[in-house]
């Protein structure tokens, strides 16, 4: 008697469990359904059009299926030069951001929280200000009769106006200004989480301030620095507005070339091929950095040295 009652209870529990699990699955699916509008938006506005462009890039000008648009990119020197310029500008902008961003983030991270918050306004203000306004501002500051040239000549640093804009100089200065917040914010965030006891312990054990920084602090701040570098570099690769205005037509990035091809020749095949290659290079950079970051975490977690 007791046995059969027990087994009946078990069966009921099992049936209930199955039902509950089904209910749970149904509810999860319903919740998942909440993301459908967002998915549709991305598919309709990004996935289908970009896929369509990719399809178009596989046809040559006569409408025959070929890899012409891609092979031409490899053969033509001018396309190679544009990609080289793009990587050059991105690399140098990133380097500039690291050189001026690291000391600044370090400075902010050492300040008491209240003062650091005030310092952060200096980073957030440009971050929220219109990109176009900032680009325009640099045009004003760097031009022949601009502030920098005027002050430089008044102080006797140089005699004739320097060419600071409508070339590589202007492009790099403007882009570094726009990208700096993207480097400083993640870097500052990771520096704030560094446990100061490690640094204290190092100097207690006889490390000079420089040694304590170099052997302890710097390695601990690397993940934040690395995240910032990746974001800045990837954003630079696709940049358009700032180089178009501050480069004065001398600095041609891939995205500017694409715009010209559509604007002047309405040639979607060639433009799409350039865009697809730019996207693949961007994804490649993201993929590699993802792998490297993982590697970093594994090494940091295992060794602890």
């Amino acid at each position: 008697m007791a046995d059969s009652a027990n087994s009946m209870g078990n069966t009921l529990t099992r049936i209930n469990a199955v039902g509950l699990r089904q209910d749970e699955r149904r509810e999860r699916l319903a919740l998942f359904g909440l993301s459908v509008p967002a998915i549709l938006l991305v598919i309709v506005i990004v996935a289908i059009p970009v896929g369509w462009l990719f399809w178009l890039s596989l046809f040559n000008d006569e409408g025959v299926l070929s890899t012409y648009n891609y092979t031409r990119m490899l053969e033509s020197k001018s396309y190679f030069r544009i990609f080289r310029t793009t990587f050059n500008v991105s690399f140098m902008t990133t380097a500039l951001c690291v050189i001026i961003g690291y000391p600044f983030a370090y400075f902010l991270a050492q300040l008491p929280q209240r003062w650091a918050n005030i310092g952060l306004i200096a980073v957030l203000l440009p971050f929220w200000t219109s990109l176009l306004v900032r680009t325009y501002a640099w045009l004003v500051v760097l031009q022949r009769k601009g502030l920098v040239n005027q002050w430089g000549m008044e102080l006797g640093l140089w005699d004739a106006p320097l060419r600071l804009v409508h070339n590589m100089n202007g492009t790099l200065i403007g882009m570094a200004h726009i990208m700096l917040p993207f480097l400083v914010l993640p870097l500052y965030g990771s520096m704030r989480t560094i446990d100061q006891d490690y640094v204290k312990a190092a100097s207690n054990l006889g490390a000079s301030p420089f040694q304590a920084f170099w052997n302890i602090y710097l390695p601990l701040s690397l993940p934040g620095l690395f995240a910032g570098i990746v974001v800045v570099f990837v954003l630079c690769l696709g940049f358009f507005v700032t180089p178009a205005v501050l480069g004065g037509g001398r600095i041609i990035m891939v995205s500017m070339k694409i715009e010209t091809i559509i604007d002047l020749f309405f040639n979607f095949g060639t433009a799409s091929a350039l865009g697809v290659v730019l996207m693949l290079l961007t994804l490649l950079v993201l993929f590699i950095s993802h792998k490297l970051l993982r590697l970093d975490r594994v090494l940091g977690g295992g060794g602890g040295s």
Partner: protein
Amino acid sequence: MSWLDSPASDTQIPHRNRLWLYFISGLVIIFLIVPTFIVIPMSFSASQYLEFPPESWDIRWYENYFGSSEWMTATWVSLKAAVITVLITTPIATMAAYGLYVSQLRLSRFIFILLITPMMVPVILIAIGVFFAYTKLKLNNSMIGLVLAHSTLALPMVLIVISAGLRSYDMNQERVARSLGASRLKAFFIVTLPQIRFSVITGALLAFIVSFDEVIVALFITGGKMSTITRSMFLALRDQIDPTIASISTIMVLVTSIALLLAQVFGQSKRK
């Protein structure tokens, strides 16, 4: 012991040896802030050329801006597009963030990555893709087309911000509300939403900025009476420098600064 010799950090390094760091950081702050504010005096210059400091003062560039029907139309188009983008993106991103976070399916991670692709694909590629598709759909030069494109561009950032907000929120509170008889919808609106409101508001602000500041997509899919203000500014900057832009820039800088200051003040008082 003077301030210069007092220790600046846990490594007992004196402030004296840190002066270079303070100097560099001061320069960086100047580098970050000053250029943005240079546009303010420039906008009151009487001269057509960009001299600094301006030799004589005038408000003609403001008159130019407010008196020009083209600039006014462009301003309205941008403001309208930005507001509608906020109204579309914020609920869609909140729904997606909540759904993906709560459902915990293996698929969720993949969908999350799909939803942030608009941030990883170069904008120029999205721009020509949308332009091509809109030509077929006859959506070029339409508010709905512009707003859909901007909503997609804004989606990743808003989604990331709101998801971060959800992760730092204790979902048990919603479970408690539901075990006390609230429906999921009610529990979300009266328990969860008020607690993640800061991320939602930040997300909405981001959506506004992304749309208002967007140039590249608008460059392709709008024109004439549908041209956005940043598109017109970009074209004006590329061709010739019209000081009217200084007056527009000044207005934008002031609006941003005031908004940021308010956010800082209110954000601080809320946290306490």
